């Protein structure tokens, strides 16, 4: 099976949801569930068994694909776990584990679970038994048989998982409906409930779904005053998300507060016949002043997959509360509570499904946004915002392994007060050989939700930052898929008071996102390093080859050629220094301490750089005289500035103009002009090269960006030059802007006039 076919599956799942209304007899209902399972999975045969671990037995409940004789023989048949019969020994521990079971060849070896004779008789070959869990408890197994050797692929396992979950819900609803019938809910009401549930499956938006649930829920029990609140996992507050009959505004209730908060905390519906009776004293919180009765029904998932340690378990997931109030005392009956409870359980599953899709869609958008960003810090910040805003985690910590692979250190963190972040980062720095949790995750490469008392937590950090108030969340390694290397860890968590578990669905979404980001970051770094590595090598090869050539051939060469060789060597040295600065920028190393000195900008920087670039100009076949400047501009700009940094900007602008000139010496011109405004000097660099598309006017300043025209003209280049140049100019209090895109391409270097003041003098005056 290559993929799950959605449409037939939806039809089958819809048919499944009809079972509780269509069948009164349990055995017939279970038989129908098994038949639908056989159809969904395209099975040779299926069986449904219930497991009672307490009484150590299993019961054969239903089957499909067998003959009447077998059905009769097996119907309701109970087998003790641990007993042996017909060559079958059902091992208690196997069932106690509650894990999925696959057997390749039942006819040769039933592995104690199946009788080979029966397997041969009914042509059963391979089987997958999938556990049915309700409220985190194993209730049975759904067994899917093939008639020949069959490998159960991932998609098929996913399909059986979807079916098994829905089957459990159907069984629960069947039981629930029979209970509702016993509490004398009319068939009409049950039919209406089923219609509402069908209507809910069509909702594509959580807000609309909540409105629908409130509308239909109130209609179902015949009341008009109600509201739905959702638990905010960051604040622990129950935010009102839908209401009817204009409830007066009040601050949100906390989890555990009021009848509403109590119902969610205790995970059961609460019905108060008279909110002013002593029973509710100190608990009831007034919304409508004339309310006498209140019914609060929690919206929660009973058997959500959760992670504890490295294992998957089951636990409840509180989502919100459906509240109904009435001015009449004793307004609500058991039947109202039961039917609303049933609706709320279904609602919880629908909300969870919709939110899963919405989270994936939001993260896909963030992934696209990351693609356009080249700055490491920017990417990490977008990722952390994505994790908190989309997945609802309150706390995120990104720790990175150092290049020597000896330590792991927290580099980015969200969820701490600003004044504690630096101290936390300083303390969260551990040897990879240590017993620290982060170091252990790097070694084990496993996703883990450690217990809050876990011994691997740093006691110093725990005490200083009150980590016992947090769940301490999920720890996830950031693994580079190409070489299985761990480059860091991501830790994401909530406050312990608002949530009990970390849910596996969120972990899987987070994992997909983290895998994507890890790959994107590594690819970006690799690409930049390859580019810069190539440019380093080119310059070194230039120096080496010129030096060797001079050494061997100096006697035979003209003075002019020797001079050109030395010029080339010096230019390559300048290029190397320029590359070092780019590398420092990529690695995030601090720039060397600035030396501020008096600079005659045109003479000391511009003219000097033009002379240095003579070999590059000659290489293109251009003439130095085509770089034009006005000698009268030389004395105009005398400022106190970090000469090396300013030199880097001019070097970058001029090399770009040379590299991206149109072919042909007659087409090459660079014109440098000096202007001034009241506050600034403006140095204009104009060239008549290949130009810059209007759509790229701002993008050219983004880290790593190169226009398609630039890439096609010149393959090498890291796309960092203009980013670094603008950064330098802004550090000076000025700017670097693109004033015109094409013919001429015109960059303006803006230098503030206040740089005319000698900072050393002003320092002394102070």
């Amino acid at each position, binding site marked *: 099976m290559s993929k799950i076919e959605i449409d037939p599956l939806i039809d089958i799942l819809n048919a499944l949801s009809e079972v509780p209304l269509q069948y009164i007899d349990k055995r017939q209902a279970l038989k129908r569930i098994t038949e639908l399972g056989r159809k969904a999975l395209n099975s040779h045969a299926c069986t449904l068994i219930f497991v009672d671990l307490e009484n150590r037995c299993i019961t054969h409940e239903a089957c499909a694909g067998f003959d009447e004789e077998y059905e009769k023989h097996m119907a309701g048949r109970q087998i003790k776990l641990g007993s042996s019969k017909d060559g079958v020994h059902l091992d208690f521990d196997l069932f106690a584990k509650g894990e999925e079971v696959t057997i390749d060849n039942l006819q040769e070896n039933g592995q104690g679970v199946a009788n080979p004779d029966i397997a041969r008789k009914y042509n059963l070959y391979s089987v997958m038994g999938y556990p049915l869990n309700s409220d985190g408890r194993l209730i049975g197994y759904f067994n899917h048989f093939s008639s020949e050797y069959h490998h159960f692929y991932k998609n098929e396992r996913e399909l059986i998982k979807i079916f098994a979950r829905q089957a459990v819900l159907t069984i629960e609803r069947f039981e629930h409906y029979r209970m509702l019938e016993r509490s004398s809910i009319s068939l009409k009401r049950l039919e209406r409930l089923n219609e509402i549930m069908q209507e809910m499956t069509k909702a594509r938006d959580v807000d609309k779904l909540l409105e629908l649930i409130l509308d239909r829920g109130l209609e179902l029990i015949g009341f008009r005053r109600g509201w739905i609140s959702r638990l905010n996992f960051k604040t622990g507050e129950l935010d009102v998300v839908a209401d009817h009959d204009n409830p007066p505004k009040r601050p949100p209730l906390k989890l555990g507060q009021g009848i509403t908060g109590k119902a969610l905390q205790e995970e059961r519906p609460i019905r108060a016949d008279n909110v002013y009776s002593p029973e509710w004293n100190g608990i009831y919180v007034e919304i409508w002043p004339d309310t006498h009765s209140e019914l609060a029904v929690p919206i929660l998932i009973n058997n959500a997959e959760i992670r504890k340690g490295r294992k998957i378990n089951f636990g409840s997931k509180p989502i919100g509360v459906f509240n109904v109030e009435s001015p009449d005392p004793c307004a609500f009956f058991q039947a109202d509570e039961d039917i609303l409870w049933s609706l709320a359980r279904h609602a919880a599953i629908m909300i969870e499904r919709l939110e899963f899709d919405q989270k994936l869609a939001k993260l896909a958008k963030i992934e696209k946004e990351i693609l356009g960003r080249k700055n490491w810090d920017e990417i990490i910040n977008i990722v952390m915002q994505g994790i908190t805003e989309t997945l609802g985690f309150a706390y995120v910590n990104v720790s990175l392994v150092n290049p020597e692979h000896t330590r792991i250190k927290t580099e980015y963190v969200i969820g701490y007060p600003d004044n504690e972040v630096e101290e936390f980062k300083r303390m969260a720095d551990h040897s990879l050989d240590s017993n620290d949790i982060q170091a252990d995750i790097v070694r084990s490469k496993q996703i883990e939700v450690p217990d809050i008392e876990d011994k691997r937590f740093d006691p110093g950090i725990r005490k200083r930052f009150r980590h016992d108030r947090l769940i301490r969340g999920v720890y996830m390694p950031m693994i580079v898929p190409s070489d299985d290397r761990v480059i860091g860890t991501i830790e994401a968590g909530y406050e312990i008071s608002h949530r009990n578990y970390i849910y596996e669905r969120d972990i899987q979404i987070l994992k997909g996102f983290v895998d994507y980001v890890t790959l994107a970051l590594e690819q970006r770094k690799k690409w930049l390093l390859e580019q810069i590595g*190539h440019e380093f090598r080119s310059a070194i090869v230039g120096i080496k080859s010129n030096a060797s050539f001079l050494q061997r051939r100096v006697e035979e060469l003209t003075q002019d050629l020797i001079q050109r060789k030395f010029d080339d060597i010096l230019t390559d040295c300048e290029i190397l220094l320029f590359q070092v600065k780019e590398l420092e920028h990529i690695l995030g190393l601090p720039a060397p301490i600035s030396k501020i000195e008096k600079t005659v900008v045109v003479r000391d920087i511009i003219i000097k750089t033009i002379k240095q670039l003579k070999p590059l100009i000659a290489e293109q076949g251009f003439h130095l005289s085509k770089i034009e400047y006005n000698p009268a501009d030389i004395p105009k700009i005398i400022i106190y500035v970090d000469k090396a940094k300013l030199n880097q900007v001019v070097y970058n602008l001029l090399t770009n103009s040379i590299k991206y000139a149109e072919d042909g010496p007659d087409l090459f011109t660079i014109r440098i002009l000096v202007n001034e405004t009241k506050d600034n000097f403006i140095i204009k660099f104009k060239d008549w090269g290949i130009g810059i598309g209007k759509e790229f006017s701002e993008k050219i300043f983004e880290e790593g960006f190169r226009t398609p025209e630039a890439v096609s003209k*010149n*393959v090498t280049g890291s796309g960092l030059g203009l980013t670094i140049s603008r950064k330098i100019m802004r550090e000076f209090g000025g700017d670097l802007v693109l004033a015109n895109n094409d013919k001429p391409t015109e960059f303006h270097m803006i230098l503030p006039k206040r740089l005319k003041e000698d900072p050393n003098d002003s320092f002394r005056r102070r």
Partner: protein
Amino acid sequence: MILFVDDEKREMDSYVQELELSGYKVVFKKDADVALEFFEKSLNEIDLVILDIMMSPGSSFKQMDTQMGLRTGIAFYKKIREKASELPVLIFTNVSDEKVSETFLKETKCQFLRKENYLPFEVVDEVKKILG
């Protein structure tokens, strides 16, 4: 005649001059389009092609997979082999990716040299070995 194809003319000058001073006639082309045109026109006169890998693809190689110019030399090499299966080719590059060198290991009449490991006179020695 040696056809030397490389977009970094200045860095390759000493190699070209050393070859010339050693008695070889060298035609240097820094543009892939011009180089391909020259190759096709002068095929019978060319004894050896010295070829870089990272070069702008130009219009001749746009349709081929050059990884935006990072591997133009590989596409150029294929074009050479279409016309001259026995012509010696010396790949001379700064590309450090081992996958690239492995590509050429399987080829006959083709040698792969990393620029950083060869000084101009050493390249002349290699050329002598190839051309005899």
